[in-house]
């Protein structure tokens, strides 16, 4: 009996070691591009999903790029038919059955400025999605103020992808699909709205670890962020 207990203990220990290892390694190995399409998503990728579902006889409404209840129903029917988890959400697995790869660049196709707008919206969503609307416009405005400043790169992508400039770029949250609020905030900033009055920096005083940022003169705070020149 005692030996049996030892074996059991060893087994548990072994399983524990493997589990813990996997738990530690998994997030390091997994890519951060957790892009999924679900109710409320919009854009060209949604259009693509709707088109494929329609071709295969699961979707009957218009291909409008808006992931509404009809799209959810179609996705559920598709998932049921192919023995997938029926949740109405297009994740990696459903997408691979449909024959598309979910990349993060689900931006609307078209002109130079429209992809820039989408990138800016993704930054706003990744960096400030819990903030009040004005705070989201302010974050987008900081990016555009940097583009205008001589001390920073001169394109929107240059500013956003400058190393260590934004935490949501380092941790991959920028690859999430932005919501309408974030897109509208980016659009407002592009149209010249700047609640910060020309600020070049913002930080969350509760989580910021850089001592240097505290030395900038604070101009205003919106939501959780302080904005500085």
């Amino acid at each position, binding site marked *: 009996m005692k030996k049996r207990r030892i*074996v059991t203990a*060893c087994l548990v220990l072994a399983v524990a070691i493997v589990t813990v290892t996997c738990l530690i*390694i998994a997030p390091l190995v997994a890519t951060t591009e957790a892009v999924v399409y679900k109710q409320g998503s919009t854009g060209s990728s949604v259009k693509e999903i709707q088109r494929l579902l329609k071709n295969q006889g699961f979707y009957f409404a218009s291909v409008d790029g808006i992931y509404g209840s009809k799209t959810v129903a179609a996705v559920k029917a598709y998932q049921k038919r192919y023995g997938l988890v029926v949740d109405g959400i297009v994740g990696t697995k459903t997408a691979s059955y449909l024959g598309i790869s979910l990349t993060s660049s689900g931006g609307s196709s078209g002109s130079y400025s429209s992809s820039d707008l989408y990138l800016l919206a993704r930054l706003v969503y990744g960096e400030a999605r819990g903030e009040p609307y004005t705070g989201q416009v302010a974050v987008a405005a900081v990016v555009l103020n940097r583009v205008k400043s*001589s001390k920073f790169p001169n394109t929107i992508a240059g500013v956003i992808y400058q190393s260590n400039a934004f935490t949501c770029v380092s941790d991959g949250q920028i690859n999430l699909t932005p919501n*309408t609020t974030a897109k509208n905030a980016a659009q407002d900033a592009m149209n*010249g709205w700047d*609640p910060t009055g020309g600020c070049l920096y913002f930080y969350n005083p509760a989580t910021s670890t850089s001592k240097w940022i505290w030395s900038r003169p604070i101009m205003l705070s919106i939501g959780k962020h302080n904005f500085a020149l």
Partner: protein
Amino acid sequence: MSKKFYVITTIILAAAVLALAGVATWAYTDGQGYRSQLENGSRKAFYDLVADVNNLEVKLNKVNVSSSASYQRQQLLDIWRQSDLAATNLSSLSTGNSLVGETTKFVNQTSDYCKYLSDRIAETGEPLSSAEKAALRSLYETNVSLKDSLNSYDVNTAVSEMSFSGYDSEGSNNFVSSLNENVDSSIDYPELIYDGPFSDSIQNKTPKLSGEEVGVDAAIEYFAALHGIDKANVADNGESSGRFKVFNLSYGDTVAQVTAIDCKLLSMNNYHECDQQEYNEEQCITIAERFVKSAGFDNMKKVWISNYNGIMYINFVYASGETVCYSDMVKVKVASDTGAIVGFEAQEYLTNHYDRGTVPAPTLSENEVLDSIIDNMTLSAVTLALVPDGESETLTYELYGQYEGTDFFIYVDAKTGYEIEVLQVIDGDQGRLLI
């Protein structure tokens, strides 16, 4: 029996340990691969930067000894391109904090200033003046110190001694920090005043807004009157001091900033997602016009309207007689479902507006300007417009017309007849845009 248990136990444990070791080794090698890829990216940027700065030095020197306008222009355009490359390489090295910010500024200004000079030569045909050469000379000298600093990182030892991708606890890169210490702080950068977007005078522009400074009570009164509400309902959220000293006020979901000087609405926002369109463009314009006037902005003329998801973005500029002044712009957002004002912004107006007196008459007549436009263009409107040109303003004829189905705005200098800007109208998902 007991022996078998021990054997099984040992095997299971050994397997677990081996698996752990395997995963750890794999993760380590994998990580090393990524790290060296990252380091190689930074190294490439560094080598390219050194090459760019070396080339800049040679070209800046050549401009200084040359006396012919065409050769100078060609070299200046080369410098413009080369310093743009240097700025790109710097940005792939630098971090978000202001590290190497001064160096980036220098490189960007060099680029901007040389572009400005080359445009100037193209326009006047005159070679560089001695003042311009002196400014270029000081850029050259700064560039020499930058080059020396960069070259002092003997590339072979720098690579081995300094880990390019080593980050300290605050997230800054060791290499960039030392670059910052040695390059940024030791060089005296010249201050350049010229008409370009990166000129110091433009970057540090002070608002022209003048008038009496008011207290928060007057601001609340103004804001309440504007919305026709009781001032007890307006919340005071304190002051802030960006380019303007402002009072932050709110009323329900509407947040607004009112300037202390002259008590004017600087910005206002009330987030709204549009439903069904109930008001057409004309009605929205009327609503916006009324609001702009009651906010205390007089003689404003509508110059632009764009519909984005049911929100009408309407731009107004100040009109002095027949001439519109583009620097003095306010922007209004009207929700086309409720007809409510959901956004207002007057940053540009309050920064740039001043009493210009009477705008001088154009040197060229309208007919002289119209003669010069291309044949297949159909004109719909001609207006006199003052457009911002660095720190000053230029009087232009604004020609609005169609060419092969696309709308264009062309701005022609009313004195020289040169085209100073051509804008194309794009109809897209985001409403009407100008590019």
